[in-house]
């Protein structure tokens, strides 16, 4: 199958790079990183670096799943509640006496189930993805709350050391979860770029009907994408639970918005057909670095929303302007 270039008919490597959708977020993240390294000496403190890793990793893992969905033209608002549920399922399995490995598998399995349900509702029952995943978001949260009835703020605690080690252990001075994230980014980037399945997702996101007419099983591909997103969200929940040693009702509340915003800054679009995993990763890195910068400069956190919203607005508008002029040049208007 021919490999479709996401962008670009210009010459020169730099010009081509700038035309990639993820250029903005990579650039923003890199600038912010360089700025923080030089302007704030305490940025490179071990405590800060560690907290950066543990906040980027779970959200970055979720952003990968979200980006896969965005590319295929749908999205998933239930990731936050899936994250909470995944952590809860593994925590409950542990208290029921399951081995850590089994508990992790159980948590991931809950993600498979939710992803499959999402996929079937959207692709078989043909319910709009926004409605379907708001619905499963409510359902997931409802289940979490019911499971946690009678348990206080803390929810489930006291997990075996070997389970907590998943979230707290380090390898070569970086957390396991950060390594996992990096591996997943590379794997998914390659899958999207060079495999048949990955290229099909771009076609489906670009034009669902014509993708089906080309003989692509769009329905199956999107269901798989939903399952991937569910699995990654649930796994992120397991990691957070292992890291904090707590599974409560607050895990992942509002996470869906952060993840979607990171993906849009990273070049994704709710319309589908564009975006990359590197973009999702750099978008998330940018978001986390920015909230870190706010902490380091002791700026009240409410300014962060203003800035994030503003940047998002600029990114969306510029992207719209660019594609509008491109279409005008091609004579579509």
């Amino acid at each position, binding site marked *: 199958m021919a490999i479709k270039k996401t962008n670009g008919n210009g010459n020169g490597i730099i010009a081509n790079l700038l035309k990639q959708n993820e250029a903005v977020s990579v650039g923003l993240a890199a600038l912010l990183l360089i700025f923080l390294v030089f302007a704030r000496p305490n940025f490179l403190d071990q405590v800060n670096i560690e907290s950066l890793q543990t906040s980027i990793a779970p959200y970055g893992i979720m952003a990968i799943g979200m980006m896969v969905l965005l590319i295929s033209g749908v999205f998933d608002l239930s990731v936050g509640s899936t994250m909470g549920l995944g952590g809860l399922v593994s925590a409950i399995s542990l208290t029921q006496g399951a081995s850590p490995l089994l508990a992790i598998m159980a948590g991931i399995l809950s993600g498979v189930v939710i992803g499959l349900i999402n996929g079937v509702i959207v692709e078989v029952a043909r319910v709009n993805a926004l409605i379907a995943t708001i619905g499963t978001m409510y359902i997931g949260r409802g289940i979490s709350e*019911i499971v946690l009835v009678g348990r206080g703020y803390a929810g489930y605690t006291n997990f075996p050391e070997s389970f907590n080690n998943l979230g707290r252990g380090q390898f070569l001075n970086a957390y396991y979860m950060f390594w996992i994230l990096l591996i997943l980014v590379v794997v998914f980037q390659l899958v999207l770029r060079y495999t048949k399945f990955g290229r099909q997702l771009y076609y489906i996101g670009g034009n669902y009907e014509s993708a089906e007419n080309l003989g692509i099983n769009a329905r199956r591909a999107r269901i798989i994408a939903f399952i991937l997103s569910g699995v990654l969200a649930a796994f992120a929940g397991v990691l957070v639970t292992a890291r904090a040693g707590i599974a409560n009702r607050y895990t992942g509340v509002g996470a869906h918005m952060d993840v979607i915003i990171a993906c849009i800054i990273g070049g994704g679009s709710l319309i589908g057909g564009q975006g990359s995993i590197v973009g999702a990763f750099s978008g998330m890195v940018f978001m986390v670095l920015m909230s870190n910068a706010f902490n380091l400069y002791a700026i009240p956190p409410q300014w962060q929303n203003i800035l994030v919203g503003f940047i998002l607005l600029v990114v969306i508008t510029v992207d719209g302007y660019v594609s509008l002029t491109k279409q005008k040049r091609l004579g579509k208007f």
Partner: protein
Amino acid sequence: MTDQAIPAPSTVSRKKKFNLGSLTIIVITLGLFILLTFTSDTFFTYRNIYSILYGVSFQFLAVIGFTYLMIIGEIDLSVGSVYAFSGMFMGYLMVMQKVPLLPAMGLSLLACIVMGAITGFLIVRFKLNSMMVTIATMTLIRGLASNFVKRMYGATYPTIMRRLSKIEIGDVFLTIVVMVVLVVALEVLLKRSSIFKRMYGVGENRLTARIYGIKSDRIIIALFALSALTAGIGGILISSRVSYADTAIGLGLEFHLLTAAVLGGASLYGGKGSMLGSCVGLIFLATILNGMVIFNIEPLLQQLIVGIILIAAVFMDTRLNKYE
């Protein structure tokens, strides 16, 4: 000229769908009312029904603009943030800057209208996806609102502002009267007035609407401004009722309104929806919660049930429209 340009056949087919949408939710809500009346002594009392309506009347204001936007095929996820912003901004002006009631209210609503108009302008001018843009404005406006919260240090709003939501006409709270009057007026306008009917045209097919001479861009910008305005009015009133700047105001309201509007027959693809349907949708959601409290069912189950109902309703709708 444009009045005659609306073709008659599309009006007929549209009416059929539209009636079906709002009728379903009315029947379901009536069924729920009857069920609760027969199974509980406390449900069908004046006080209980009154309190349900009072609670809904604030959200209803916000759902007006939201429903119109859904009819023309756009969506405004920033309603919850505007809902929080308007009251907090007004409260901030009154508490910290000592601005009198009416100028503070005027400034706050003006700010809402401007934000809505900017949102609409960006969407129309750059042909942007309204969901993406309003996710951005939602974050931005929420940030502005929480800025005012922090600056007020938990102060209570002045008495004169707190009294707004308690204004009564006869023996009934003004907000309920406004809700009833607006539902009737707007529903009649949507069905009878050619200006309002154009919205369905824009929602069904923007290109056709343009060919028939409907200036859809202007309508869209105006409706985004209206959505921010109605959400702003609702927000000022709810702030007046809550009496201090509570950060939880309006959180998740956009999805609540979306659920209500969709239950009331609106579609994410535009061209469908009604004011009565959205209003009954809100009443339905409030009644479910009310019934759960009466029966001492874990109120947390509400989310679960609302989620299932939402998916089921849209699924039914998709099926029905397919066979039409």
